[in-house]
């Protein structure tokens, strides 16, 4: 293991490794083949040259047809990966995801299954506005049969992607536009991070911040600042949002007695509400303060940078939420 790797390169490597190993791994998406330059974010750069146009299929702008074809190929035993350019565009193909990919294993009584990875990207902070920035993980986490994954660093992106491709059920794999350039220590070839396992990104004893994706970076920064004030923050990076790693999260909050749940998605009805409720169910008498929730404002994501920065949880806001749990008086 030597040097660093970016999240974009790590994702490309994971897909490349899986394609080399299994002919059934195919990639479908708009602009993904060599002719189009290997995808809008270049995640499939170089793969057409190696695996051919039957395995890297540039598609028409037809999200229902892309995801439907992936469902069909998966039913036939292939391991398709769909690249849906931006997360908001999943909404035009919800039927294939929710009614088909998620449910066919159950509705067939286990006779069929859908080993499909739906890769998509999104992110607040680039000024893409209301229809190109949403984090919709809660919509998918609500559907039995789907797994929802999002990495916060390059090494996890590589390892989670390998695990997602190997998974025999459909996985929504959320990439954050702002994270593609992030660098990690290169984890080397064939790195796998199992689905369903959260990571303790930083250990601490006073308050747990439970988060995932890009906001892990904010949480780590805030944890560093709070350490100077003598507050020891533990940061949990869920990595897999659904199924939820109850064991790791409960153990952390049992230890600290305080929790802040943080995500970029709209706070109202978000996954933070589910996590807070579960902490209540498990740890009601042991909590030293009510669980604090942080998320996006209840509006469309605005374009203007000034507004966008007020829309997402700020580092100050995260710090205040931790303070609120520390200063709580019964």
């Amino acid at each position, binding site marked *: 293991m030597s040097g660093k790797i970016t999240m974009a390169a790590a994702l490309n490597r994971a897909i490349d490794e899986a394609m080399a190993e299994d*002919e059934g791994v*195919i990639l479908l998406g708009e602009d993904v083949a060599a002719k189009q330059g290997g995808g809008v974010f270049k995640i499939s750069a170089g793969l057409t040259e190696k695996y051919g146009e*039957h*395995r890297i*299929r540039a*598609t*028409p702008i*037809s999200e*229902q*047809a892309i*995801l*439907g*074809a*992936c*469902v*069909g*190929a*998966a*039913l*036939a*035993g*292939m391991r*398709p990966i769909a690249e849906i350019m931006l997360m908001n565009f999943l909404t035009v193909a919800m*039927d*294939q995801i929710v*009614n*088909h990919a998620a449910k*066919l*294993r*159950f*509705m*067939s*009584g*286990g*006779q*069929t*299954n859908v080993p499909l990875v739906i890769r998509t990207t999104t992110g607040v902070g680039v000024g893409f506005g209301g229809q190109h920035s949403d984090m919709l993980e809660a919509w998918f986490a609500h559907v*039995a*049969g789907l*797994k929802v994954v999002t990495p916060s660093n390059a090494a996890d992106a590589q390892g989670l992607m390998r695990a997602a491709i190997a*998974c*025999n*059920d459909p996985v929504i794999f959320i990439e954050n536009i702002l994270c593609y350039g992030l660098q990690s220590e290169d984890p080397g070839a064939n790195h796998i991070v199992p689905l369903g396992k959260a990571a303790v990104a930083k250990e601490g004893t006073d308050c747990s911040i439970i988060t995932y994706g890009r906001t892990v970076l904010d949480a780590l920064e805030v944890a560093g600042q709070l350490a100077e004030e003598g507050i020891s923050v533990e940061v949990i990076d869920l990595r897999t949002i659904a*199924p939820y790693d109850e064991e790791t999260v409960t153990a952390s909050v049992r230890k600290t007695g305080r929790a802040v749940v943080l995500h970029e998605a709209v706070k109202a009805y978000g996954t933070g509400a589910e996590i807070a409720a579960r902490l209540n169910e498990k740890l009601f008498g042991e909590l030293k303060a009510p669980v604090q929730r942080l998320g996006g404002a209840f509006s469309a994501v605005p374009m203007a940078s000034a507004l966008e920065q007020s829309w997402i949880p700020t580092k100050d806001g995260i710090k205040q939420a931790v303070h609120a749990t520390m200063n709580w008086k019964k």
Partner: protein
Amino acid sequence: MKIDRDKLLDIYTRTMRIAKTDEKFRSLLMSGKFASMYYTVRGQELVSAAAMAALEPTDYLVTTYRGQHDQIAKGVPLKPLFAEIIGKATGTCKGKGGAMHITHPDSGVMVTTGVVGSGLPIANGLAMAAQNRKDGRIAVTCFGDGASNIGAFHEALNMAELYKLPVIFICQNNRYGEHTAFADHTCVDSIVTRAAAYGMKGVKVDGNDAEAMYTVVKEAADRARAGEGPTLIEAMCYRMMGHFFGADFSYMPKEHLEEMAREDPLPRLRKLMLDYQYSEAELDAILADIDAEVEAAAQFAFDSPFPDASELRIDVYEEEIAA
């Protein structure tokens, strides 16, 4: 056009298994022996029988809620089919799918969808798997006239032709989508004209003509297998009852009902069998066998246990969900 005499017998047998099964379900529902949402296939038996007789058992099928004729014609055994529809643990899908979601990969029935039009993109994916593997399989998907107005239809046709996928789109135009007549929901006279918009081969056929229906599907299957791409087939037929069992169909004009009665595929096929020199006695013997098979299947279903509540945690994911 004449077809092989044995093939016609095969089509007859498939048709009558469909017809007898449907008749049995309607009589069970009528007598209150079980209750369920049931989309009768009365009037469309022959369309599927002739189509599926032109395929290989290993070919893939994706169909819809009104798909019992397609499933039986493709080879789904009657015992687990009855059990599934009645909601028993011995059903094709352990009672988790029901009539609208029959799946039986051993017969090639990969998906039955309750969402209008959603099967077409999925059939493309099955065909794509066959194309990549060069395994000689093709995918067939059946859907109604109403389904040709949903976006998925158009996206799927374009993609299928673009990739020259080995897939056949069979639109069973029964002239109604729920209560709405064809001319009131579609702006072209024939759905098959839409094939041209995608540079696709389109064929319109009288679905109640066994020889024509079989021949058209066989040609499309041969083309698909030869790598020549998809075909859109518009098979004209009639939905001889309401949208679902028990539903009102007084909105159908008298002339339509008369035309439908004249075109009933069952007497028409019987007559064709006689033209092909099958005797009444031979045909009746086949019907007696089918009757016995249907009765045994219904009995099997009623005698079978209900699924256990623990099934709610099984087949959601590969791993069982903890209790």
